[in-house]
């Protein structure tokens, strides 16, 4: 059995104390670009207290509404982001995955892609789901490329769904079936 369920090549998935998470998450919201890449609701700056209250209410309730992990680098153990599965629909075996890297200097180094591989393995071999879904904003091409590298297939777009900065942008849906993951295991070779 795989005892490295939470470890990848560059990062590991973990759970941190609420104070640690609240400090980091609140700090990341000071960067409006981080939020705009991740969430559709209007950007907000959150205080540590408000973040901590939210974590207590949502994440630490039993059972939690979603499976969230913190992402830590293997080399220096730095907390760089979070990744989670939302809306796990057990009867249909599907869920939505979402990831956010709050530390800007960790963008573009493959940490997100590695974290995504770990959570896919978790979804398919520990939660035994049959598919994993995600949605991503048209104006986030770096994320779209990362998800394709890991094997997600584009399934369509909700046209002109997001209104930001005077423009309308599509909301792209992607999905991966268990049968597909079992073949490539999240590693799509570049042709």
């Amino acid at each position, binding site marked *: 059995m795989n005892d490295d369920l939470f470890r990848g090549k560059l990062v590991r998935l973990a759970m941190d104390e609420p104070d640690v998470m609240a400090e980091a998450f*609140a700090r990341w*919201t*000071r*960067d*409006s*670009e981080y939020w*705009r890449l991740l969430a559709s609701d*209007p*950007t*907000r*700056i*959150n*205080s*540590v*207290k*408000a973040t901590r*209250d939210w974590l207590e209410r949502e994440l630490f309730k039993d059972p939690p509404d979603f499976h969230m992990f913190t992402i830590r680098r293997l080399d220096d153990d730095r907390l760089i982001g979070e990744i989670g599965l939302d809306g796990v629909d057990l009867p249909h075996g599907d869920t939505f995955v979402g990831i956010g890297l709050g530390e800007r200097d960790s963008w573009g180094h493959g940490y997100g892609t590695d974290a995504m591989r770990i959570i896919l393995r978790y979804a398919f071999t520990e939660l035994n789901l049959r598919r994993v879904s995600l949605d991503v904003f048209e*104006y986030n091409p770096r994320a779209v490329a990362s998800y394709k590298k890991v094997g997600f297939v584009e399934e369509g777009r909700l046209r002109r769904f997001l*209104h*930001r*900065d*005077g*423009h309308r942008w599509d909301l792209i849906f992607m999905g991966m079936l268990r049968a597909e993951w079992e073949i490539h295991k999240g590693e799509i070779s570049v042709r």
Partner: protein
Amino acid sequence: MPNDLFHGNLVYLTAEEPEAQASSFSRWFQNTEFARLLAIAPEILWSQNKIKEWIEKDYEKEKPEGYFFTVRDSQNDRLIGFFGLWDIDVNHLNSIIAIGIGEPEYWGKGYGSEAMQLALRYAFTELNLHRVSLFVFAYNTRAIRSYYKSGFQLEGIQRKAMLRDGERHDIVAMGILREEWEARAA
């Protein structure tokens, strides 16, 4: 798209921990000039504890009622003021803005104007509002000048709506439309 909604040159926007916010607010309202420029009601001098309690209660709400930011000096990180977009009519995409610079040494130097620009950019490109309104007291000539400079237009006057120091004063209603703001920003 531009990356940073929260930073200007002179100021940047933050969310405060309840203690810090309560402490500043409590002190600002003890300055009656500030209180009389900003607020219509005779403000009770609330304790820091009471203000902290309200802020915390606000945080507990699932759906906050408006968008509130505190404003800090970019140079020295000092907490100098705030603004809030309230009373949002979601299907009409309107809102009212309340803005205040609490530290008097920051008046008349462009800090408030810049905070207003950040507020309007947030209102028009993130909340996608169609118009922003404000009410300002006729004797607050410095603010009125600043609002005109920011692109607000005079829309109405509530005649003699305030009584202070034995005299009646008008309340001025101003507004700015998204297309007007976009034309200026272009």
